[in-house]
């Protein structure tokens, strides 16, 4: 039972972490390697808020806003000139991740710090006791997934975004300013990454390089998911589940490799990964 919950909560966390990266990849066809940096920004936003004694729940909103603003600035200055050079965009955003990490180190120090959790304790669930915060994360991830789904499928903004994902040239010919859509998407992706960073910090700790391992897993999940949020949920469940099982019955360090290795193999034999053709 608790293993099932582990799988579910792990998938939820992975989904929250990877969603922003997927949206950026879908619209802009570039991999944002600063995603790890934005996660770190979110973690430290949460740290700053809780240190000031403000309600930890507020940290989530704060982290989102900070990430969004960082995304706006970075899209204009760095990402926009690299639209036609996707591999260089990977490098430049990785460099941004380094910059973010160093700025945070200078501001907060390089040591590992702990963030107060909004809720502590465990709840009894079907005879087992389980971390309340992890369960709340599942709820948040589901809310996030539903909200993204509603925005994409239920609003004009979402329609315009989907149009740009499917055929950017055609969308432009219909009067859609795809540059603006890219700008908004990158900012949203950064905001979501930062939000995810704030969400995961109570589970572990913050340090200036906390984003890197998450970045790699999120990147691989996005690679196997194509540009579909539904495939992403599926990939998080399958690969996240495999990670939990390998960690439990094998060894936690090898468990950490599960997603990366499985995703690479899936792509080798099925180039579109878990996405429909």
């Amino acid at each position, binding site marked *: 039972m608790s293993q099932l919950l582990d799988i579910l909560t792990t998938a939820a966390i992975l989904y929250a972490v990877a969603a922003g990266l997927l949206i950026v990849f879908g619209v802009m066809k570039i991999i944002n390697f600063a995603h790890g940096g934005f996660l770190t920004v979110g973690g430290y936003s949460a740290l700053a808020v809780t240190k000031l004694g403000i309600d930890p729940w507020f940290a989530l909103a704060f982290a989102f806003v900070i990430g969004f603003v960082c995304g706006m600035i970075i899209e204009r200055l760095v990402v926009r000139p690299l639209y036609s050079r996707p591999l260089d965009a990977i490098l430049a955003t990785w460099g941004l991740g380094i910059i973010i990490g160093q700025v945070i180190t200078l501001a907060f120090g390089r040591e590992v710090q702990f963030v107060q959790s909004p809720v502590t304790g465990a709840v009894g669930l079907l005879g087992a006791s389980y971390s309340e915060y992890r369960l709340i994360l599942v709820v948040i991830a589901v809310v996030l997934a539903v909200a993204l789904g509603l925005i994409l499928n239920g609003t004009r903004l979402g329609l315009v975004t989907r149009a740009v994902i499917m055929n950017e040239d055609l969308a432009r010919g219909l009067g859609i300013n795809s540059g603006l859509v890219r700008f908004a998407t990158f900012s949203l992706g950064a905001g979501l990454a930062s939000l995810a960073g704030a969400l995961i910090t109570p589970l572990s700790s913050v340090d200036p390089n906390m984003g890197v391992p998450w970045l790699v897993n999120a990147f691989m999940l996005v690679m196997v998911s194509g540009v579909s949020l539904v495939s992403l949920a599926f990939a998080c469940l399958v690969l996240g589940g495999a990670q939990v099982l390998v960690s439990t019955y094998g060894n936690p360090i090898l468990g950490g490799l599960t997603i990366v290795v499985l995703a690479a193999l899936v792509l*080798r034999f099925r180039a579109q990964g878990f996405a429909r053709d």
Partner: protein
Amino acid sequence: MSNGTITGAATMASQPHRRSHANLRNIAILTVVALLIVGVGPYVLPTYMVNSLIRAFLYAAVALTVDVLWGYTGILTFGQSAFFGIGAYAAGLVFTHLGFTPGYATLSFFGAVFAAMLAAAIVGWLAFYHGASPLYGSVITLVLPIVVSQILYSGGNFTGSSSGLSGFESFDISIETWFWIAGAFLVLLTAGAWIFVRSDAGKILIAIRDNEQRCEYLGINVSRVKILLLVVCAAIAGIAGYAFAGVQMVVAPEYAGFVFGTELLIWVALGGRGTLIGPVLGTLVLDVSTSYLSGNLPYVWKLIIGVAFVVVIVALPGGLMPLAIASWRRLLRRGRAVDAETTVLVPAEEEPFAGLQGGGQHALTLTEVSKHFGSLKVLEGIAFQAQRGELLSLVGPNGAGKTTLMRCIADGDERSRGSILINDHDIQRLPPYSCVAFGVGRKFQTANVFDSLTVAQALRIARTRLKRPSFWQRAPTLELPQAALQVIAATGLDQHLDLEARHLAHGQKQALELAMVLALEPSVLLLDEPTAGLTKPERTRIGGILVDLATAHRLCILLVEHDLDFVREISSRVIVLHQGKIVLDGTVSEVVESELVRSIYSGAVLPSASAA
């Protein structure tokens, strides 16, 4: 230009040949100078600097392999650190667990090289399969160091886990000697890489970077080239890692990790990708400065590097080396150095194609060829035969399936059903480079050339399949079949042999691609709108050449063309495609007079149309 003049020019070949040797001599002089600098280094430099430089030399050797892979071949790799780590651990593990003896040192050296090469072969198989996207290749090179370092973390006492291995016995060599070994290793490696990338074989790397698809359709097995290159680069990184463990007597998982892999990329990018010297100097300067500065201002220094990296990638993708060279030249008031040297074209000895001798064989046989995209049928039941000497035009409205049919003939994996025989060889599911070996040459619709190679270099790439290029020098002459020479002479390309293809006019690019395809000595020539975007005189000239290729050189030419006037003038036979099916297969006059064709072409019957 007559053939006589071309052959006659071959006697002039001695001078460029001397030039090629002069280049090698210059490299030799530079190498000796660099070795001398390395030789005096330990006597004039402070000990701390000597220590830092030993490490930087070894890092620079790895950075050099990153530059060959990324800067020259276009493979963005995060994974060279893994091979370095494998080499380092091969030494560390053997020396820690078995002890240090000359025998074990030798064993672990070969173990290091072998393990790195094996890992590279596996990674290459994963990353560079036929049709893999460049992004996927990069993904795999990113996975590799993560996997290797995590395995090292999980190795418990055997690998020392996160603290790694240290304090093992190692070579009893003075620090000065290590400096000489590492320095000489780097200098000789750089010189070797320099000679290689400038050689005829080295140009294949640039060709792959510029246009992988064109390489495959010139008969080059790109996957195999990339895998071999990666294996060699891995061996070099493994040796560097082995030496690193030997001198530092410490190994840790970070040296095999992804972050070190990206650090190598930063050094290469800042130094200047695709310049070899830039990445080497970049690594030396940055790593040594880091060891001095990171003590005083640890985070600020890394921040500065990060900012510089982003700025260079965005605003100065070539890195700092080209900038330095340009200002150096301006200082000396010298013009652009001429890298390319004059190449002399000579006629190749053409082997009569096997298909000719057998007699009664068909150049091209298609049986029930179909192509579906999901439920959409693009081609259905295409069947025809063609012989050498035929100039067969494929016509039909947009979406009739003409280009798709060309693709199916040149790549075995394209069609959904049916069989295709080229000179009686079944192409099965074989990739384009195998179809080339059966005698197919394909020219693409838009001029598909190598932008940063000169005309002569591009033509030599096309000859790779028939004549193995040198790995260390540039041949002064280039053998080409008569057909290719004729196209080159007729379009004036022979005046621009040393011009990079991106500077050519559109029509000349089209001619260059045609000449490249002819250099393959194909018997079946696939041409997709070879005259698109050309002026009227250029079209006429190309048309004349095509007729000559079919009649004099006995090529079987399949031509896709929209300009029906052009088709009428040159074809010996016309196939009309409509909605994926052959609706007419006949002579030019049959097609011209066909009411059916006219109605297909104008969307409806044109009442008073007459074949003017």
